[in-house]
């Protein structure tokens, strides 16, 4: 028998280590130390109900356990085999105590659809994909469905583009199917560029065949025989696994002429990008694939009319494709039963930043931010206070504690001043300065702007400069007005999605954290204490013993004072490197 004690950060904070110790001691006392083992595990994802203890193999799941409960767990459950009812997990939907194997699903917040095979099959073995119903969906399409049927299934499923904007996928396919041409193309957008996002890479590395199969299904639906995957060269492992997968699919005849004995032929090639953020925009992506500069052009014409090589092309994101085969296999009714009214299915998020369980998650639409951050994510690192989460990368905005209970879907996030984006979620705590966060994203946008249109090329640079002034303590209240005006002009006049969304991080932080902006310009103070230029180091006279450690460590000789006398920092000379603070053993250096 095993007793598993959650050793996740949040449970540890609520004494789970002590619980494990108590259990071990109780077992020793009863002479069961050798037969029953107590094991600390990683996070169960149920932090709200922690600390948790699970008894194996009985599958009994105890929540909110206290160290003093160890005796009763050992005496009742381990020795007599009777579960301790008052500690058992209660299924929130039925109100019943649960134990045994039936309980697992009830507390799990995640459903893996796009990631269904990721981390379970060998991505370099096509047979393992086939064993999990792989290529059954394309088989069903070419034998049972007409192209119009396939489009209907995708339309009815309510699937929306997972790349960020959330355009209905079925509608996109329908438009492409209606445009007549001698050649059409299916394009997979694998140019994942948001800082902190790695959803598409994980899908391609873990389950490349699901994307290949979906592209073939799309080809069948819109009447295309050629597929192209635009992937950045900085994803070498994903490229290698895609190449292997394409090779194996061709060997089996699942790509190529007359797939599974039908009249339908389809093949896929790779196109490499050089890692430019703007190439995630579909017109820029297409130009890059054509060998031209990766610059966007005006829409219309949309790619569905005139895309790659001037032919009708359908561009979808990796995660969108990865969801398609399951929808065909299980039916649109099943898919549309998951999620919210207007956002169906699940969404993959890359959880990063100041969160305990950094990782890749897939959750049903409609889940709240609170569930993601405090249950699946295990809460904020080092017990700090949650401040905000950035969704949608450099095009999105931040959500604050006011939004913690908002159900997450495409429309709610837009209403909250952010956007779904491709799925990066960067969590920030009380130590993060929101002006600096906005500056960070603008620095990224300035670097990634292609330079074709003036508002984006020059406007973003000006915003970045203004933000820099503010973080250095040189800004004025008038600058804040100027900043906001400029943001709106850039949004209204830029050519493509990059410029139209790049001021969002500034606007969203201004909307939610205006007090921080004001503190920077009026008091010359950074409330989070992260803007170096606004920090002031001083020595507390009463605490200083005159050991000279700070003066000896100061690289610019800004500290003076006699031995055994209090020291002083010359603010004119100080470069705010923090060396004195680190060297002082008496806590006499104060940071303002």
């Amino acid at each position, binding site marked *: 028998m*095993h007793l*598993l004690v959650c*050793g996740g950060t949040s449970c540890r904070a609520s004494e789970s280590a002590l619980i494990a110790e108590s259990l071990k001691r109780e077992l020793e006392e009863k002479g069961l130390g050798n037969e029953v*083992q107590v*094991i*600390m*595990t*990683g*996070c*169960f*994802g149920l932090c709200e109900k922690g600390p948790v203890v699970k008894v194996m193999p009985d599958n009994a799941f105890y929540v909110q356990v206290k160290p003093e409960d160890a005796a009763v767990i050992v005496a009742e459950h381990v020795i007599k085999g009777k579960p301790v009812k008052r500690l058992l997990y209660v299924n929130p939907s039925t109100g019943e105590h649960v134990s045994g194997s039936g309980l*697992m*699903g009830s507390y*799990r*917040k*995640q*459903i*893996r659809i796009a*990631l*269904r*095979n*990721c*981390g*379970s*099959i*060998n*991505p*370099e073995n096509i*047979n*393992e994909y*086939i*064993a999990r*119903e*792989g290529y*059954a969906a394309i*088989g069903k399409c070419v*034998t049972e469905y007409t192209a119009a049927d396939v489009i209907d299934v995708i339309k009815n499923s309510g699937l929306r583009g997972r790349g960020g904007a959330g355009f209905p996928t079925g509608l996109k396919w329908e438009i492409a199917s209606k445009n007549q041409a001698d050649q059409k193309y299916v394009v997979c957008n694998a140019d994942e560029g948001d800082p902190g996002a*790695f959803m598409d*890479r*994980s899908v391609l*590395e*873990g*389950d490349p065949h699901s994307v290949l199969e979906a592209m073939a299904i799309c080809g069948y639906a819109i009447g295309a025989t050629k597929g192209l995957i635009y992937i950045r060269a900085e*994803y070498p*492992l*994903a490229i290698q696994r895609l190449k292997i997968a394409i090779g194996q699919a061709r*060997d*089996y*005849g*699942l790509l190529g002429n007359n797939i*599974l*004995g039908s009249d339908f032929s389809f093949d896929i090639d790779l196109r490499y990008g050089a890692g430019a953020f703007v190439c995630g925009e579909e017109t820029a992506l297409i130009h890059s694939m054509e060998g031209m500069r990766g610059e966007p052009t005006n829409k219309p014409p949309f790619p569905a009319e005139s895309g790659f090589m001037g032919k009708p092309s359908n561009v979808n994101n990796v995660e969108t494709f990865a969801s398609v085969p*399951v929808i065909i296999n299980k039916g649109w009714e099943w898919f549309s039963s998951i999620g919210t009214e207007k956002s169906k299915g699940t969404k993959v998020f890359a959880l990063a930043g100041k969160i305990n*369980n*950094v*990782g*890749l*998650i*897939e959750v049903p639409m409609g889940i709240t931010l609170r569930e993601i951050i405090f249950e*699946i994510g295990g809460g904020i690192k080092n017990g700090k206070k949650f401040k905000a989460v950035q969704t949608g990368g450099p095009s999105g905005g931040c959500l604050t504690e006011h939004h913690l209970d908002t159900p997450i879907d495409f429309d709610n996030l837009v209403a909250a001043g952010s956007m779904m984006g491709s799925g990066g979620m960067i969590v920030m705590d009380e130590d993060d300065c929101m002006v600096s966060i906005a500056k960070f994203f603008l620095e990224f946008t300035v670097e990634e702007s292609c330079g074709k249109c003036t508002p984006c090329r020059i406007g973003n640079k000006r915003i970045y400069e203004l933000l820099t002034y503010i973080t250095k303590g040189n800004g004025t209240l008038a600058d804040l007005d100027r900043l906001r005006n400029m943001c709106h002009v850039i949004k209204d006049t830029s050519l493509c999605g990059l410029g139209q969304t790049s001021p969002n991080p500034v606007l969203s932080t201004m909307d939610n954290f205006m007090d921080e902006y004001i503190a920077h310009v009026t008091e010359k103070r950074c409330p989070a204490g992260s803007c170096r230029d606004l920090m002031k180091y001083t020595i507390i006279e009463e605490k200083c013993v005159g050991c000279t450690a700070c003066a000896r460590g100061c690289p610019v000789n800004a500290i003076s004072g006699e031995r055994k006398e209090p020291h002083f920092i010359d603010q004119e000379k100080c470069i705010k490197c923090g060396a004195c603070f680190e060297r002082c053993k008496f806590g006499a250096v104060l940071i303002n």
Partner: protein
Amino acid sequence: MEKLKSIADLKKVRIETKTQLDMRARDGSPEAVVQVRVAMATCGIASGARPIMDFFVEELDKRGIGAVVTQTGCMGYCYAEPTVEVQLPGQEPVVYGFVDRKRADEIIEKYIRNGELVEGIIPVNYERID
């Protein structure tokens, strides 16, 4: 590889592979083996999954334990890489995180040989659809 010319051909591959995988996992079947899956996405490899996979391959062989060691994609527990899933015949798979050589050795000696769980288990907190 022979081309699959019909749905029936595809089904044959599916059933053959499924049967083979099921036999490996079933307790008491002649093909029953220990299955070790190492998360080998870029993040896993960057955290040192490759030498861990090599360690399992070499050591299980050296210690005479019948096992199949394969690579797989991201399991999602980026904070705990390298992660390894171990499935003993007839049992539910168990995921271990923060697997270094020491823990890998412990997994082989305690869990794989004797069925004793060791520290570092990551409870699976998601459902996969079939």
